[in-house]
């Protein structure tokens, strides 16, 4: 199980590119097929990292918010608004 480098064939690369295009949000999709697979992979990594950062920031924010308020009344509020939407 060591040193099993699987070479990536041409077809796999094409499939790769189409899948990657699908993953990324609309805004960062480059027009045309100029973007190589490596670039798309890089975009994907960047996107996941930015999502992780967002989650961290949101966790910080939620931690602050939950510390400064009474959860029981907040929960009633949340339940109400969740039921509304």
């Amino acid at each position, binding site marked *: 199980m060591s040193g099993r480098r699987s070479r990536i064939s041409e077809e796999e690369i094409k499939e790769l590119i189409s*899948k990657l295009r699908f993953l990324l949000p609309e805004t960062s999709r480059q027009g045309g097929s100029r973007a190589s697979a490596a670039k798309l992979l890089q975009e994907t990594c960047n996107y*996941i990292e930015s999502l992780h950062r967002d989650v961290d920031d949101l966790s910080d924010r939620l931690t602050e918010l939950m510390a400064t308020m009474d959860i029981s009344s907040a929960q009633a*509020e*949340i339940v109400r608004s969740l039921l509304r939407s």
Partner: protein
Amino acid sequence: MAISNAEGDPATGNEGGGERKRKRRADPPVAKWRTEGEQKTYSSKLIEAIRRVRRSSAAAATDHSRSRAVRAAADRALAVAGRGRTRWSRAILSGRKLKLWVRARACRRKPLGSITAASSSHTTPKSKPPTLERKARVLGRLVPGCRKLPLLTLLEEASDYIAALEMQVRAMSAIAEILSAAGAATAEPM
């Protein structure tokens, strides 16, 4: 009659008992992460988890450690929402400590291929492996539990993971909005 290692009864009509090869996991449908129902379920679980963190955190706990606890709880709730069908969700649930330990081990055992192939490049291991593989490794590190996967499987996991993360961000933002709005409302006594 045990024909072979049957995990389910053949009598329950699982897509025609004999076709075990076709029973491969279908691609995890990504669209479910976009549904409102999924997000609502996740939100309520997350709120419960936050309450638990709040109750259980000692007075001496710093904001940072509590924030990490919230993040961990959010990730675990996300993995549970995945219903164990994907590798990343199972990896999260089987323990984050495991991930750190595996990473420490993997760092020791660098792939031998790079050392034998390049005679003198002992200090620059990055120049040998092709760019695509390098990027794929990075991606494999970002998605939990997906370090040694072949590229296409890695992409399937990554697509599900990304959709799940997006839902996580949406749900947490919504909760933060509501909490801060509720906070502003209770701050002014009527």
